[in-house]
């Protein structure tokens, strides 16, 4: 067994676990489900590492996470795919209960809830780009790799999305 693969894996875990968990939680609104999906992400990442070299590890992990979330929504037929298709969901409100995070106080939670709701109210094409750029601090190139678009398209989406978000947040 190549020991460097283990080191790569361990580093990928340490560097991305917080962001990946947050990203998945933001999409599925269920902490336990988010943990399960993140576990799957890393298992798939390990399998890929065995076969090939992964250049952009962060973008790769988020791409797997995004695909797994889409699969999860498809399997869970009772919840439609609004969050990816663009229609407004009746259950679009994100509940505070989903974040049982140990580090977050109730005052922070309320502020977080407002920001999440505002981002969620953006058009889907802007939503993910804005989230990945400003919350996960990814570069447009990395976001382009996650979403399968060109860097230029992503840059435009980020700018437009941010302007719309500023209007919504009255900044």
């Amino acid at each position, binding site marked *: 067994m190549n020991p460097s693969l283990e080191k790569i*894996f361990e580093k990928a875990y340490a560097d991305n*676990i917080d962001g990946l*968990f*947050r990203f998945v939680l*933001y999409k599925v609104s269920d902490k336990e489900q988010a*943990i399960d999906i993140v576990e799957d992400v890393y*298992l798939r990442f*390990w399998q890929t590492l065995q076969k090939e070299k992964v250049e952009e590890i962060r973008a790769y992990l988020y791409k797997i996470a995004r695909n797994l979330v889409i699969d999860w929504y498809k399997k869970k037929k009772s919840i439609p795919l609004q969050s990816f298709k663009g229609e407004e969901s009746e259950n679009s409100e994100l509940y505070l209960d989903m974040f049982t995070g140990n580090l977050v106080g109730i005052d922070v939670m309320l502020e977080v809830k407002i920001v999440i709701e505002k981002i969620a109210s953006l058009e889907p094409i802007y939503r993910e780009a804005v989230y990945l750029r400003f*919350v996960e601090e990814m570069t447009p190139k990395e976001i382009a790799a996650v979403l399968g678009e060109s860097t230029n398209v992503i840059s435009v989406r980020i700018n437009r999305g941010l302007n719309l978000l500023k209007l919504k947040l009255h900044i």
Partner: protein
Amino acid sequence: MDEFKKLKKIKLSDYEKRNLFNRISNSIKEDGENVELHYPIPSPFFRFSSLLENKRSFVLVFSVFFLFLISTTVFASFNTLPGDLLYGVKINVTEKISDLTYLTPESRAEHNLRKIERRINEFEKLAEKGRLTEENTKKIEKDVDKNFGDFDHNLGQIKKDTKENKNRLGKMLRSDLQKHTEKIKKIREDKKVSNKRALQSVIERVHSSDSE
């Protein structure tokens, strides 16, 4: 936008992260992989790195660090002697700041007196350690003369109705200097000491006060 940073506070606890890592590690082993994964323990510095991401925290951390640096430097300078690296801090920073805390002519004169005695003690310590150079002696003499001048000036400002204080301070100066006169003379007689008139102003001061 600070609003985005608030979202970053959502994360798994260390315990949950470790549990999840173990789950992944066990799943990989169950698949028949002969692999030993170790939970990556973050560096103790990394734990505090989030403090530097926020502007306010950064300023706070920097200010605390700056205060700590200043206070340790000032504290370390207390027992320095002329020729030491931090002696300049003692003379130009610590003592000058403490000068500002004395508001009345009496208290300022008393402070001058203490500084003169401190300089004489430094002179004696340097002699004991064999570090009494011409340059160090000059530094001490310069500060002693300055404090004599300040002492006289402050004494002159003491009001007539508190003349008792003026006399008390004069006596204090004389007795303090007298304690050191013999030792200064002995040091000057030492063959290693080239300046045979070192701290002459102290000796002269004692003589002049004796003759008064």
